[in-house]
């Protein structure tokens, strides 16, 4: 990397882990390009917010073009935006699984694809996707969500091979439940049962997610790609 500040794109920066990551990496000297459906109140000289739906191809392409126009580079993409929904499969309307796949799978795919186009020019890039322990734990009530994240793991593994020659690594972090809005609607008894299945039975913290991301995006992690790290010993 040159002396110029590194540039990172993070999806879903209005709140939760995305917001936390944006603030952290701004403090670390990154230029952060964030996005969410609504406006964000994060103000920093090196932060720019894009209002968009991550599943809207045109909007994603426009955001990436704006990044290229402004900085001529993109070092890191964190595909953080995601939605979850808990429902028995027999009660899950098609519209719900569509919405989940649009954000979690199509959004991740579009951002990763467009980011790789920018990263390929400089033969350097780090892409981190977000998986979930709901997939390996086969959580009842999470079929649509876990399936969407299983797709993210597959995208991660195959894309890693396809872009390795461009100096780009693609990995995924699989958090345990972290107290954010995403798990807010899940009943406490369910959460307790889930956490009991982890090797280390506690809630994840945002700092735990950050730790894995920081490992993946280190310059020295150029031999680490196509991996999904699940937290909590799942």
């Amino acid at each position, binding site marked *: 990397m040159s002396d110029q500040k590194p540039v990172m794109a993070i999806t879903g920066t209005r709140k939760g882990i995305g917001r936390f990551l944006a603030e952290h990496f701004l403090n670390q000297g990154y230029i952060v390009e964030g996005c969410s459906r609504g406006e964000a109140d994060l103000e920093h000289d090196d932060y720019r917010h894009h209002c968009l739906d991550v599943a809207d191809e045109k909007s994603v392409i426009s955001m990436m*073009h704006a990044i*290229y126009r402004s900085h001529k580079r993109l070092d890191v993409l964190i595909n953080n935006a995601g939605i979850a929904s808990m429902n028995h499969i027999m009660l899950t309307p098609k519209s719900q699984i569509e919405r989940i796949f649009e954000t979690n799978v199509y959004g991740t795919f579009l951002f990763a694809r467009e980011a790789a*186009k920018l990263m*390929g020019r400089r*033969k350097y890039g780090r892409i981190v996707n977000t998986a979930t322990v709901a997939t390996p734990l086969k959580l009842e009530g999470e079929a649509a969500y876990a399936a969407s994240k299983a797709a993210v793991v597959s995208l991660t593994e195959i894309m890693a091979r396809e872009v390795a020659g461009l100096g780009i690594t693609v990995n995924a972090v699989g958090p345990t439940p972290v107290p954010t809005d995403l798990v807010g609607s899940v009943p406490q008894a369910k959460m307790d049962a889930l956490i009991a299945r982890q090797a280390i039975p506690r809630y994840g913290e945002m700092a735990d997610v950050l730790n894995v991301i920081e490992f993946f995006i280190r310059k020295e992690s150029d031999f680490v790609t196509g991996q999904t790290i699940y937290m909590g010993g799942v």
Partner: protein
Amino acid sequence: MSLSREQAVTAIYEAIDELNPQLDGISLERSEDTILFGEGAALDSLNLVNLVMMVEQNIMMETGTEVLLASEAAMSRKRSPYRSVKALADYAAEVAA
């Protein structure tokens, strides 16, 4: 926003200039006859993809025109638009029209 054929050729030449130092032991010529894909091509598939993406970005930067050079329509053509510099310039000007 529009794209002339000359602008398309310029965008391709600029991408070639940027890509050449990254290529092992080969160098693409700045010529419309340069073969990019298929028999006689110097580029492997990953470098071809990278070149096409660079051309898309160069066109957008220079003319403000967003062209999609990697599309299902492009892939399914009998005569590949990636065959040569000339074919790619023709295709870029065509899809931008």
